[in-house]
């Protein structure tokens, strides 16, 4: 999981770089042309004050020039000449490329929705289908948003799992836990997502081992509490495992009270109390008289 995240990140960086490059190139060409353009505008305005307004047909050709300059600045002359010669006997090729694929996709999804056994809720499906392309159009916004979301996730994870990061390895560039820490972090994430039990916990082991583990953890907890008390730190309240208050299933033919063992019915003091009821307290005594 962590590895894939890293990969994604790298890809995002590459994406982010590309537009920047383009911007640089644009800005360069613009700075060159800026003065020229303002001068032209000034001339045009002056001209138009005296005479009729000019027809603006030049702009498109100028754009083309710009492009050619961008592409290969060195041999601009050559390209100009060759273009002329080609134009004479060039066959005009018109490519009829429609955005057919998208439409058919919409058709298919619509078909699935319309031809299913449920009454069609055309609105929802088609709004979904039309929403997709609009997302594509604002790809830059969504790109930054996605990056933000990714960073958010990374930060949240870092905060949560910072205790797993070994202080010695923390100096490394990688912010993700590695090795054992990575496994622990994964396990934590799974538990956050609702896993019932930790995947790292061993299920089967000898009783002695299990006992050792429980006593060790109990000891650790006890020392922690003790130290905290000595240092005057207030800890969270200790939780005791709640005793199950369920009624015991006694089976058929068993005694209604007590415990039948070795041919004798043993009654605990609690059982006795329950049999006798509250003796001599309040109404209980009076009711006992018959």
């Amino acid at each position, binding site marked *: 999981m962590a590895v894939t995240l890293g990969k994604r990140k790298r890809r995002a960086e590459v994406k982010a770089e590309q537009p920047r490059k383009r911007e640089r190139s644009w800005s360069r060409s613009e700075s060159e042309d800026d003065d020229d353009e303002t001068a032209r505008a000034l001339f045009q305005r002056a001209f138009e004050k005296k005479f009729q307004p000019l027809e603006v047909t030049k702009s498109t050709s100028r754009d083309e020039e710009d492009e050619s300059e961008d592409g290969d600045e060195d041999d601009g002359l050559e390209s100009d000449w060759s273009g002329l010669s080609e134009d004479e006997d060039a066959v005009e090729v018109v490519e009829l490329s429609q955005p057919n694929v998208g439409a058919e996709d919409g058709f298919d999804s619509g078909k699935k929705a*319309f031809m299913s056994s449920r009454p069609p809720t055309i609105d929802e499906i088609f709004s979904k289908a039309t929403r997709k392309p609009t997302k594509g159009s604002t790809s830059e916004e969504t790109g930054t948003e996605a990056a933000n979301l990714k960073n958010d996730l990374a930060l949240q994870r870092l905060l949560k799992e910072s205790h797993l990061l070994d202080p010695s390895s923390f100096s490394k560039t990688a912010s993700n836990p590695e090795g054992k820490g990575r496994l622990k972090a994964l396990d934590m994430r799974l538990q956050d997502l609702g896993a019932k039990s930790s995947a790292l916990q061993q299920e089967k082991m000898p009783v002695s081992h299990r006992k050792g583990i429980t006593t060790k953890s109990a000891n650790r907890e006890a020392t922690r509490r003790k130290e905290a008390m000595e240092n005057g730190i207030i800890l969270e309240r200790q939780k005791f495992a709640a005793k199950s208050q369920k009624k015991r299933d006694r089976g058929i033919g068993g005694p209604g009270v007590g415990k039948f063992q070795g041919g004798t019915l043993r009654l605990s003091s609690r059982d006795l109390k329950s049999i006798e009821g509250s003796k001599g307290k309040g109404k209980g005594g009076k009711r006992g008289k018959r």
Partner: protein
Amino acid sequence: MTTAPGPAPLKFTGSKHLIQRLVLATLTGRAIRISQIRASSHTAPGLAPHEVSFLRLLDAITNGSVIEFSYTGTTVLYKPGLITGSAAGYGSAGGVVRHELPADCTRGASYFITPLCLLAPFSKAQVNVLFTGPGVITSATPTGDISVDTVRTAILPLYKSFGIENNLELRILRRSNAGPGGKGGGGEVQLVFGHQVRLPKTIHILSGGRIKRVRGVAYAIGVAGANNARMIEAARGVLNEFAPDTYIYSDVSSAPLIPAPERNNANAKRKIGLGFGLSLVAESNTGELYSADIASAPSGGEVPEDLGKRCAFQLLESVAQGGCASHVAAPTMLTLMAMGSEDVGRLALGKEVLGSEQVVQLARDLRDFGMSGWGMKDADEEGEAVVSIVGRGVGNVGRKIA
């Protein structure tokens, strides 16, 4: 039962609007006696096979109904019971009531499904009925029934405005046109109506809006799929001019087989219900639906292009009638409004729809069953009228204690 006798049964005559009356009787819990059913006919007096079949269906999804026929079948006494739906133990196996339609049934499956849908929201448990047998015609029929596709795409969505929208399904398991002579078919349809309510919501639907899209299903059963393409092209030729967002999906299936035992082969089967048809639904921007339906005649001899064009014209006519419910949808809408809570619901209808025989008769029948009268006034649009109906809060007896 030993309960005290209720009020005397309402009396109706004639075979027309029989289903509508039976449905209203079941919903309101009033007993009815319908007499003189095709009494003047010498060849086929009394109840027709499809009517008997509907009575059987009512018996299957209710508990405690009493149905009594006279000797000739020209008189029926129906004392409705509680609508239990497909609850286990009342004739349903595995939660599904299996309803077989007889081979001489001339009506489409929608003849049974549409009224069943009206009863289903007021049922105690969900209604899950599988229509099967040698008489299930899923296509539109010459007798004027709509196809099951139209039921699914134009009738079931109506229930959404009444707050009934979850778990509604109409599964078309096997398609079939009408068989030879318009009788029988081998289709299979399952209706699952899993949303039961105490009372349907009060609606105020006054603006029909403008058509924004047209959808449709073309079906070819046991014949070449090219018929579909031809129908679709013809229909699009008409409709594209008005609504460019027109998609008609094509469904090609093989002909259903029904058992036809012969003397030397008991397991023999034969094909039935070949043909093709088209169902179109136009949706307005306010969500109203207008539908059109057509299917090839059982005798054949019709060109797909003709059918496609006729269906498109039919759709245009339905749209032209205006209002917020087409003549197919109006009875369902109006009945649900009458069953709603004691509040005024309003619905704009085209005057042609409102003046149709079925709607007028529905108004009269509702009055007979003790529902309030309808208020009518001109709507903002020309040729439309607003019908206001006060519900009687009859609703769901099975859900009164909930």
